[in-house]
């Protein structure tokens, strides 16, 4: 995955989560909508954060097949 894709994913998920939390605090959206946004955005946040710290570096490899 390219660094740019990962940065976009990270930015999008952070924005979605902040917006959902802010809108919930301002009582603009019901709690279940905020929960739905978080359920969709939190996995993207976790993975893209990991990938963003250390963007893909290695060569593609075949799975481990034994010693």
């Amino acid at each position, binding site marked *: 995955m390219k660094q740019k894709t990962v940065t976009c994913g990270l930015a999008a998920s952070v924005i979605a989560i902040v917006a959902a*939390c802010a809108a919930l605090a301002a009582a603009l959206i019901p709690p279940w909508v905020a929960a739905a946004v978080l359920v969709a955005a939190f*996995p993207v946040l*976790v*993975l893209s954060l*990991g990938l963003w710290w250390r963007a893909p570096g*290695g060569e593609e*490899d075949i799975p*481990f*097949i034994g010693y």
Partner: protein
Amino acid sequence: MIEYLVFAAVFGLLLLGIHRKVIARIQIRPGPPIWQEILHALKFSFKSTWVPKTASSALFVAVVLVGIGIWSAALFVVLAGESILILFAIYMLHKIVEHGYGLSSGSPYGKFGGVRSVISAASEIPLFVTIAAIYLFTGSLILRDITAYQDIHGPLLLIAPPVALAMYIVILSKMPYGPFSIVESKELVSGYKTEHFGAWRAGLAVTDGLKTFVLLYAFVAIFIGAVPFWAALIIMTAVLISLSFVCAVTPMLSPFDSVTVQGIITGLMLIYAGCLWWVMS
């Protein structure tokens, strides 16, 4: 709300760390520090990451997202006091996710982990019996109603101990190093997790943390009722330590024995639920 997710993931990982520590002390080993699982998750997230050459790449990445997503949803369902049938569905869907982890990479080890996950589906039926029995007592499957019922009648743990035992066994079969954890046993390298490394593995760790927290929290909410949050955390830790004792003193069963034992437990639970239904109707 994000703070709930982060807290649940970190506390769940801490519980898994305590689990390892307790097992180690029972087996007279020093064991890793209790925050080891949190460090593991961080460590994996700093590793360089790619998708294996032979993998079905979309599926390989998507199952990690789905895994975190379903347990985040389960956390919100439990916190909001919604239907425990949804929790039941998510618990069973975790099988599909495990299956997906194993199959998507093309690794034979992962594949066998995934296949074992499907054949041990028998471990899910006690949860169904739990739900049926709870419904017989409370007349509802909404967590709010179940807590309200317990406010009047006392904890379900005392009213229907076999039901609590069924859910306890269900949680036990999801614990690492337990008698039923054939899906990640060592002859399969790391079972279904074998090919998910780096950031993918960090995602898996977050899933495991959320899963442990949600299952133990649901156990407290369903069988003990409304308690302050700090008390719930203490009871969860106590339940976890009892699980660690079980895991420490039992060997991992062979896949065939694991399925047989789970099948027998399921049969007993079905008989109990049948008797309960006969008595109550």
